[in-house]
Structures are given as structure tokens and as C-alpha cells.
């Protein structure tokens, strides 16, 4: 564990065996957990509504349910854990520049919010919001890939 990682990282838990996990990974995981709760809440509302025989207004939340579960939960958690556990850059303790990963974090979460907002509102701006949201999600994944690519190459070459 390098000194820089101690400065930037945070301990996820106290006590023996605890690991130092980067602050950025904490943010990704926390946001993913929030999205998981939101996705489960909306999903429970939809299923319960189906149970009481309604096809009510709550079904307008169906696209939000999918967006939160797939992007906000699964993809975001995978990115956070990948940032944490992928091999460090060749021979050192550095994970590389964090700028692209921070950009990925904000783009992903902004994109999820925009896409959900677009799915909940009508009219022309809604379509634009959905498009911008999906675009931001794509940019987030691209930014994360820019960060992760050299770390994966370092592992594959055995360095």
C-alpha cells in the first residue's frame, strides 16, 4: 500500500483484516446501493400494483426501474469494484490518473438522472433529456475504459 493511497484512500471498516479502499470506489459503491434501493422500491410498487389488478400511473416509473437496476446498480457497482481491484500500473502502487474515473462517476449518475427525467416527462424536451442521459452514460463508460485499459494490459502482460 503506497503512501499516496493512504492519503487518497479510506478504510471501509475498522478492525483486523480491514482493507484500504479508494475514496472513489466508496462513492461508486454508495451510489450503486442508493440506486439499488430505488430500483427495488420502484419494482416493488410495480409488482404490488400488478397484484391489486391495477395498471395505474405507477407504471410510468417502469423505464426508471430498468435504468436504475441496469445502469445505476449493476454497471456502477462493477465500475467501482473494478477501479478498486484491477491491477495497479506496472510495478507501482498507482492506479493511474483518477480524473477520467471521477468524470465517469458524475457522467454516469447525471446520465441516469437525465434518462429517468426524460422518461417521466412528456414532449420534445423529454426525448432530448433521454438522449442526453444515454449519451452521458456512454461517455461515462468510455471515460472509465480510458482509465482501466492500461491496467488490464499491465495484468495481461504479466507485469
Amino acid at each position, binding site marked *: 500500500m503506497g503512501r499516496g493511497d493512504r492519503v487518497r484512500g479510506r*478504510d471501509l471498516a475498522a478492525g483486523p483484516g480491514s482493507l484500504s479502499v479508494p475514496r472513489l470506489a*466508496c462513492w461508486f459503491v454508495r451510489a450503486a446501493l442508493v440506486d439499488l434501493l430505488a430500483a427495488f422500491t420502484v419494482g416493488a410498487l410495480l409488482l404490488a400494483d400488478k397484484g391489486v389488478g391495477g395498471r395505474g400511473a405507477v407504471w410510468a416509473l417502469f423505464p426508471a426501474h430498468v435504468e436504475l437496476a441496469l445502469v445505476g446498480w*449493476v454497471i456502477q457497482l462493477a465500475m467501482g469494484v473494478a477501479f478498486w481491484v484491477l491491477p495497479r500500473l506496472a510495478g507501482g502502487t498507482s492506479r493511474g490518473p483518477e480524473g477520467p474515473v471521477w468524470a465517469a462517476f458524475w457522467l454516469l449518475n447525471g446520465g441516469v438522472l437525465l434518462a429517468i427525467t426524460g422518461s417521466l416527462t412528456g414532449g420534445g424536451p423529454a426525448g432530448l433529456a433521454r438522449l442526453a442521459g444515454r449519451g452521458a452514460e456512454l461517455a461515462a463508460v468510455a471515460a472509465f475504459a480510458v482509465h482501466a485499459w492500461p491496467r488490464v494490459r499491465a495484468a495481461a502482460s504479466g507485469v
Partner: protein
Amino acid sequence: MVSCGVPCLTRCFVRAALVHLVAGLAIGVLLAAPGGLPVPAAFLTLAPVYFHLVMVGWVTQLIFGVSLWMFPRRPRAAPPGPDALGWAALVGLNAGLVLRAIAEPAHALAPRAGWGGWLVLAALLQWGAGIAYVAAIWPRVRAR
């Protein structure tokens, strides 16, 4: 229970996830069957069950189990609350999913047969499981 601990909980999560994956993909095969095959019409109501067995029963459940194992634990002296929450998540998620897998197609085929209440119960069980999991894992993510 004492000798089991978190590894046992993780094993249960992963094995249950594998069962859901096999069941989900089996339903996927039936849903993809060409029209000429003798697949009962009831199977056509299973599309939501298929998606949720794969995404919740497999993907999410595997994440639950592995994260409860991998994320740093509290000291041994800490009260066993997080483990209890993990077991609650396991039971709630699987009971809710199985209940849904039975009640959702049944409700679609016979809306007045009283299956709706079971769907509400399935929703509550899965929602409770999500809350229990987040309550269990959140303190292990929070910075000291």
C-alpha cells in the same frame, strides 16, 4: 449458525443464484421455442419472471453474496447484526422471487383466483430483502 458465519451465508447466496440462473435460462429456452413446439400457453406469461430470475435471482444475488464475503468485516467483537441482516436478505429475496415466479403467471392466467395478494407479498419480501442487504453492507462501505 455460529459455526456457519458469513462464508456459509455466501455459499447459500451463490448456490441460490446458480439455481435461479438455471431456472431463468430454462424459461428463456421455452420462451424462445418456435410456434410449432408444444409449449403450453401459460409459459408465454413468464417473460417478466425470466428477466427477474436472471437479473435479480442471478446477477443481484451473486453480488449480494460475494460482497457480503469480500467487503471488509467489522471486528469480531461487533454485535452480529449485519449477519442477521444478510440472512434476512437471503430469505426475503429467494422467498419473494419464488413466490413471484409462481404467482405472477398464475395471476395473469386467472386474475380473479386470488393470486394478487401473493404478488403483493412477493413485492414486500423482495423490497425488504433489498433494505436488509443495504443495511448490512452500508456500514462496511462507510469510511472510518
